[in-house]
């Protein structure tokens, strides 16, 4: 059986169930890299120029950890999944960059996804990918329909059941993914509602964000994340703030940010990484919006030098500020 490696990084959090179903329908076995560790991060960083962003380094680390465990590695090059949206260069060039810096990697399966070029080009790209496994176009078609369905189920699990991507993936694949207790809701009274906005590969990679969600929940706060919103909610909020969205994966920042600011989050935490192109513009827009609404906003910029103590200190200060603000508001009302 052919083994396909999928790195647990970047778009994994958005699309893994879809990819898994697609490849398994075509008779392949899917191998996922383990959760991020310091070793994975360091290995990845050692391969690229220093300026490359943290998520890309993490991604390459995951590829390295898969090197002798699979026959192919699947890395899509996604240009747009919506009409007239555009994507970050690093995601576009990901397959090529991986090939260049990890020469020992197994052959890379890449697929160009650009809906601007029309349905036909997209179908052909999917077919070309499927051809590696079967000559039968109907089989590829069946696999992609099943994959599409899996994606919808995955989205629904997250929206309506309020699961985080790792939890949803765990439920779908029946594999224990998350350490028990890390994401579990706390039953205590909530002191404040905090929205976290940012890409899923930052919010749910506990190694690079130093268990941010866990820390917030431990301090008895309710945590809101972009995946809890429906696509329509995010889209309408994005349209309100930006008009037409320019980026493919920035709705989870702008749309979610705007939605939570409007719907009464006590504070918003924006997570981004140093040197992120799209985020550098979009986070700024959300931050400006938060300022005009006088909602507390904290921008956390992560890189491989980020230290746990630094994050904890800033988080504590931010939470203290919110609690005090809430208390004052209550006092004024009385």
């Amino acid at each position, binding site marked *: 059986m052919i083994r396909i490696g999928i790195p647990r990084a970047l778009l994994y959090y958005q699309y893994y169930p879809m990819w898994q179903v697609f490849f398994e329908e075509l008779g392949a076995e899917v191998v996922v890299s383990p959760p991020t560790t310091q070793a994975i991060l360091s290995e990845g960083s050692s391969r690229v120029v220093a300026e490359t962003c943290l998520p890309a380094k993490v991604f390459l680390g995951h590829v390295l950890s898969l090197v002798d465990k699979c026959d192919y590695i699947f890395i899509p090059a996604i240009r747009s999944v919506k009409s007239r949206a*555009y994507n970050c260069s*690093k995601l576009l*060039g990901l397959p090529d960059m991986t090939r*260049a810096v990890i020469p020992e990697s197994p052959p890379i399966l890449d697929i160009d996804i650009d809906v601007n070029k029309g349905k036909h080009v997209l179908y052909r790209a999917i077919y070309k990918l499927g051809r590696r496994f079967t000559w039968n176009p109907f089989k590829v078609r069946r696999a992609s329909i099943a994959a599409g369905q899996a994606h919808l189920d995955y989205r629904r699990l997250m929206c309506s059941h309020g699961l985080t991507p790792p939890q949803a993936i765990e439920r779908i694949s029946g594999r224990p993914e998350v350490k028990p207790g890390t994401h579990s809701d706390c039953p205590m009274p909530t002191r404040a509602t905090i929205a976290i906005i940012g890409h899923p590969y930052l919010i749910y990679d506990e190694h690079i964000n130093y268990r941010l969600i866990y820390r917030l929940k431990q301090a008895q706060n309710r945590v809101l994340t972009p995946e809890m919103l429906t696509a329509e909610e995010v889209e309408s909020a994005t349209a309100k703030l930006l008009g037409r969205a320019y980026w493919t994966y920035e709705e989870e920042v702008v749309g979610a940010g705007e939605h939570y600011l409007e719907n009464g989050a006590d504070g918003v935490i924006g997570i981004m990484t140093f*040197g992120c192109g799209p985020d550098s*513009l979009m986070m700024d827009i959300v931050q400006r919006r938060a300022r005009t609404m006088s909602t507390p906003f904290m921008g956390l910029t992560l890189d491989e030098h980020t230290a746990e103590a630094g994050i904890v200190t800033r988080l504590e200060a931010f939470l203290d500020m919110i609690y005090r603000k809430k208390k004052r508001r209550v006092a004024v009302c009385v």
Partner: protein
Amino acid sequence: MGNTYIPFKALFKRLNVDFVLPPVNNQRTLSLGVRYSPVGLCIPFKLTLGNLIEAAEMGADTLLMAGGYGICRLGNYAQTQEQILHDLGYKVEVVQVNVSEQKLSGLLKMIKRLSNNASWARIISAFRIGLTKLNALDRIERAVQKIRAVELVKGTANKLYAKAVKAIDEADDYSTLKKVQRDYINQLNQVPKNPQAQPLIVGITGEFYVLLEPFSNLDVESELGKLGVEVRRRLFVSEWTKFSLFLNSLGISETARIHKAALPYLKRDVGGDGWESVGEKVLHAKEYDGFIHLAPFTCMPEIVAQNIMSSTKENIPVLTILCDEQVTKTGMLTRLEAFVDLLERKRRAGNNNRH
């Protein structure tokens, strides 16, 4: 950016558009840009924001800024900059000059709007003089690049260049322009040269803005000239205009060859000039002695290019210089000198092997 203001100036003058020209990039422009930009943005954003602020200070109410879908972050800049200017209290409109789609027609339409509906004949004639100036400027610059490396008295070519730019700016009809161009090219050719010089040839590639705006790259080309290096650059605004406004629509593309060279290493467009950077290195690896790769700090496409460039089979020394507000002249000079030393030694070693 660079001398692109000259053709635009000619264009608007002919159309009687009331325009202000912000000062050429200087330390104040940069400081203004840096102060009001989000931190993670690149130097082209910061400098253009500085330009826009300075223009707004001078009373402009409509500002021109390049943009368009699918380039890199640039497509988003005009919108963000307008927001920043509004927050600063300037009541301005930032008009996006679309450089990625509907290029020629979009540009002409925009000019029509700005010129209060001047007749098409006048617009075309103004457009033509702008283009002629652009071409003249770039021809002279090409000559300057060659002379800088071999001139006996360093700085002669640069002085002539500055004079030529001024003369072109002042020229107002085609015959004067032609004469100015011929005169200065002749003068440049007569600059006393070092007869023994066999200058190293260094290709210079990278991101559009930092490549063409000497202020942002600390005038790297002149510095290389002082070190006796001949610079080869593909990107000129006139070339870009020629292809992207006219020839591309006829299916002629200057970059097809470069993209083809890059294919084994980079299969797809990653935005900006990333694809071209990789392609040029591969294409010219045998001809040139080395490459200087210029990129703004945090530039997304060039980071991808930089990662890929170091692994190509076609091997040639590449020095990547990241430009931002922190780069200093001394730091850059030291790196350039070391790089040129390395290239010289490599060339000498190559010659010895051949004997």
